[in-house]
């Protein structure tokens, strides 16, 4: 009986310690903001036929910079509203988990854009970005609500399947890179943001 009580107390302590490390700020507005910008960037790319590597890379790298800046502003605004420090330990952990794959992806984008490769390389770059971003989300998922890790796995799995399909079909997938980017960085973010709102975890998601 006493042992049960002690074991339950230990379990409660473990749960609380885990919860303490979890990022609690609103993820839904960030996801919806990133998704809306992703869809808008894809629409711009398709509408203006920005199909060369240079145009594609510039458009999406620019979008990424705007999304990161906007996400930081949303986080800061919420921290200010809740009278909490902006650079709190959970925020720091999320940033540390996300940064390496994001920097690697951006660096790869700059290289591809600078070299201005032609012939299907925009699709390859899009899939590599999806893969890197998925790895970042998965790492951040250790300090965030469970859905983030699942979203990360979705990005990784889809990118792997499409990359393998491209490799075995001699890189001709007949896909437009802007569609891919719009689906993954626009559609999936919007879907996850909507899910967070509908399940009531849009604010202070734990």
């Amino acid at each position: 009986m006493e042992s049960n009580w002690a074991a339950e107390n230990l379990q409660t302590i473990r749960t609380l310690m885990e919860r303490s490390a979890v990022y609690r700020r609103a993820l839904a507005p960030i996801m919806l903001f990133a998704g809306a910008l992703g869809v808008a960037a894809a629409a711009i790319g398709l509408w203006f036929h920005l199909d060369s590597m240079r145009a594609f890379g510039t458009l999406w790298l620019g979008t990424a910079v705007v999304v990161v800046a906007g996400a930081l502003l949303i986080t800061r605004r919420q921290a200010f509203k809740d009278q909490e420090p902006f650079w709190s330990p959970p925020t720091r952990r999320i940033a540390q988990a996300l940064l390496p794959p994001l920097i690697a992806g951006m660096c790869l984008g700059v290289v591809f854009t600078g070299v201005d490769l032609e012939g299907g390389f925009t699709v390859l770059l899009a899939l590599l970005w999806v893969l890197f971003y998925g790895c970042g989300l998965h790492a951040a998922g250790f300090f965030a609500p469970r859905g983030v890790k699942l979203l990360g796995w979705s990005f990784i799995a889809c990118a792997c399947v499409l990359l393998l399909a491209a490799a075995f079909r001699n890189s001709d997938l007949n896909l437009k890179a802007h569609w891919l980017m719009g689906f993954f960085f626009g559609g999936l973010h919007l879907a996850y943001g909507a899910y967070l709102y509908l399940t009531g975890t849009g604010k202070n998601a734990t």
Partner: protein
Amino acid sequence: MNPEPYLQLNRVIHEKGRLAIMSMLAASPELSFTELRDALAMTDGNLTTHIRALQETGYVSVAKSFQNRRPLTTCSLTTSGRNAFAEYINLLERIVQQNRPK
């Protein structure tokens, strides 16, 4: 059954609310008052009372500052608080071990 570990349990930490606060602070270098209040679903008054009790025993330190001209209260575990918490966990583990069927 040896009742000794149970009798040694720190009564300050053993209270449910204070144990929750200590657990949260043990996993984070510091937490703001609002973060603790929201995560533990406590009222301002309840949290203040528990934090004051922990502060009086020297387990928790409270820092008051201003962020963007708004007051910010942050709490963290002191070294003695960290040691007392570790000791409390050890005792709980001993109780579990002691009562485990052989």
